């Protein structure tokens, strides 16, 4: 079945599942839900390391076929065919793939960030749904162009921010929204690693192609590559996007010709006054990937695999009888540091019910295919992608200038309606 024709399928089937319209892994991956005619043919632009990883996940969704792949770097063709297990048609030019492969229903875009807009917009303009890897676009203008392309194509766009599909994240966000840790004032997030971020380059002429992450022409650096998920989670928890950012960073560890910073610090302020702080560095591994949500009543720590809730000690704050006035208070010279030591006990782990357990990347892929089949809006849609991507772009502008950037000075105000 070719989805260039609009397929209006009753959305009632989507009513199963959580209140966010997300199906459980069992439901979204059940072979019984898909008739043989519900084949989805997926094209891939950019089968690099992330591209191949997501291709393998898409091939775990019943009825999905990788119908074609496109890359400018020929060694990727054999690698991609190894993932698909067949002689998938290969192209060097994405426009040729989109023109020639009339069987495509959707496209996975996993190319360097600066190329996302061209690949995403061309795919949408060819009438194809798009799964676009994060960040949605490179510049603010790129992001607006993508949103306009989604609208005029009337096709579905999902951004590759898969923690929106991770069950422990969904549970944490729901419980935070229900007030379990009080009012959230700050979110601190980290992605710290210890290596130079370089890939092996067979020939020096391939340096900018393979190590595109290190060059400002193509890459949003650590903030884009390692901060998108964290920033998206902050936007998700706060229910809005930031209004300004202060940025900082530098090339302080690696003197190897790179242009993107090897350490970045950014502080975003939200309209409510809440703050999101992000740190990434590639010279120390201890902290790893962490998102720490600070609320007046407790804390949530989230990682790539799990999460835990911590609760602030209860403080009694009621008026007491005045008997102590006659008895007096006692004085002594002791000084205790106990009140300011970090809490080192266990938190309460987030338990995921057995039928909700799953790999977030697989759940994101299955969710996208479900939206393609049923013509439903993805949970991580173009608005989610836009809010993250422009926040990244402005964060980088701030960091490169070592300055503050106000979002209102740089963003179109009329792109989206207000949040309901």
């Amino acid at each position, binding site marked *: 079945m070719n989805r260039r024709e609009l397929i209006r399928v009753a959305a009632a089937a989507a009513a199963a599942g959580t209140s966010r319209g997300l199906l459980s892994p069992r439901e979204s*991956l059940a072979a019984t839900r898909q008739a043989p005619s519900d084949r989805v043919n997926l094209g891939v632009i950019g089968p690099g390391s992330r591209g191949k990883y997501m291709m393998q996940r898409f091939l775990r969704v019943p009825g999905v076929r990788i119908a074609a792949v496109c890359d400018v770097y020929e060694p990727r063709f054999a690698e991609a065919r190894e993932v698909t*297990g067949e002689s998938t048609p290969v192209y060097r030019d994405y426009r040729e793939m989109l023109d020639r492969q009339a069987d495509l229903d959707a496209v996975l875009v996993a190319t360097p960030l600066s190329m996302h807009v061209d690949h995403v917009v061309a795919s949408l303009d060819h009438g194809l749904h798009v799964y676009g890897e994060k960040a949605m676009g490179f510049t603010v203008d790129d992001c607006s162009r993508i949103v306009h392309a989604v609208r005029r194509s009337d096709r579905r766009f999902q951004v590759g921010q898969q923690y929106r599909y991770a069950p422990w994240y969904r549970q944490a966000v729901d419980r935070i929204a229900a007030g379990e840790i009080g009012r959230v004032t700050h979110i601190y997030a980290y992605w710290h690693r210890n290596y*130079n971020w*370089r890939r*092996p380059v067979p020939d020096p002429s391939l340096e900018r192609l393979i190590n595109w992450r290190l060059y400002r022409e193509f890459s949003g650096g650590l903030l884009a590559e390692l901060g998108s998920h964290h920033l998206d989670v902050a936007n998700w928890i706060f229910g809005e996007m930031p209004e300004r950012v202060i940025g900082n960073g530098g090339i302080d560890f690696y003197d190897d010709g790179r242009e993107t910073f090897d350490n970045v610090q950014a502080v975003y302020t939200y309209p409510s006054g809440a703050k999101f702080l992000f740190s990434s560095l590639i010279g120390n591994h201890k902290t790893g990937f962490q998102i720490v949500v600070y609320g007046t009543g407790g804390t949530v720590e989230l990682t790539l695999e799990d999460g835990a809730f911590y609760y602030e000690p209860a403080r009694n704050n009621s008026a007491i009888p005045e008997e102590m006035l006659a008895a007096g208070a006692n004085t002594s010279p002791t000084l205790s540091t106990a009140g300011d030591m970090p809490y080192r006990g266990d938190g309460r782990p987030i338990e995921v019910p057995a039928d909700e357990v799953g790999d977030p990347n697989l759940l994101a892929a299955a969710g996208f295919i479900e939206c393609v089949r049923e013509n439903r809006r993805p949970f991580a849609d173009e608005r989610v992608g836009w809010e993250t991507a422009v926040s990244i772009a402005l964060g980088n502008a701030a960091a490169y200038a070592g300055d503050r950037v106000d979002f209102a000075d740089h963003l179109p105000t009329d792109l989206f309606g207000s949040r309901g």
Partner: protein
Amino acid sequence: MSGLELFRQARDAMGTEFEIFLYAPEAGGAGELFEQAFAEVERVESNLSSFRATSELSRINREAGRGEVTTDPETFALLRLAGDYGRATGGAFDITVGSLIAVWAAARRQARRPSRLELAPALATTGWRHLQLGAARRTVLFAVPGLTLDLGAIGKGYALDRVARLLASAGVESALIGSGQSTYRALGAPPRRAGWRINLDPADGSSLRPRVQWLRNGALSTSGRGPAAGDHAAPGEAGHIFDPRHGLPATAFSRVTALADDATEADMLSTALFVAGSVAAPALLERFPGSAALLYPGAGSSQGPQELRWPDEDRASSELQRA
């Protein structure tokens, strides 16, 4: 190979330590290769680990008893290979041993072996024949609900083979990759040598001469008493490989070392032969061309190992002297 230096890096993965030796022009490039290699081990582990609820294997275990599960080509190919191994070894090798592993682990926590009564229900949900694979749509179905797959007996070997491929495609001509010192895969040989030297320690308490094997592009794996996690043994436990066909310990040998063209097969063979016993072992090995084995008799024997097609060591070392 002038201008190349030998580098080594080791990292914990898959419940053991993975170790890579490789020849590269300089340290920076070697470091990048190690990152890619260990990322590939992590990728394999994230797909195949029984200990991760988010792995593809765990998903198949949760769902394939209720209905067909679609999986990706790589996982499907590995499951099909494992099924072929089950058939070719008469069930001495079997990836459907998850239920038995659980029963053994529970018993070991009480410092005892499981009884036949405890093994019976686990045996009812064991058997490579119950794993139904549909090639047309890459589907996996368990004919018996409660069947549980565990790839511990070939997962490390498979990871070693994937790393060898990755390094070869990155231009590395000489490398040795090992997991837990029990399985090794060679890519080429060190410069001016016949192969990578592997010392095969003699069996416990014997006066047997130490053996040496030179690996060039092949693989070697040892199963038996000792830190040989990855066999049909409870996770984290040493020794006591059980026979999947009856769930009781395999007692014919104290140790088996297998040679094969790749680590997946070597890993599988060292387990399968250990279980098969001395009568069945020769015919079993015949079904795997290019393979060889050393079968060390059970505890208490002072005899040397039985050799099955084992290459002549003197020839190998004379090749070294000529090179």
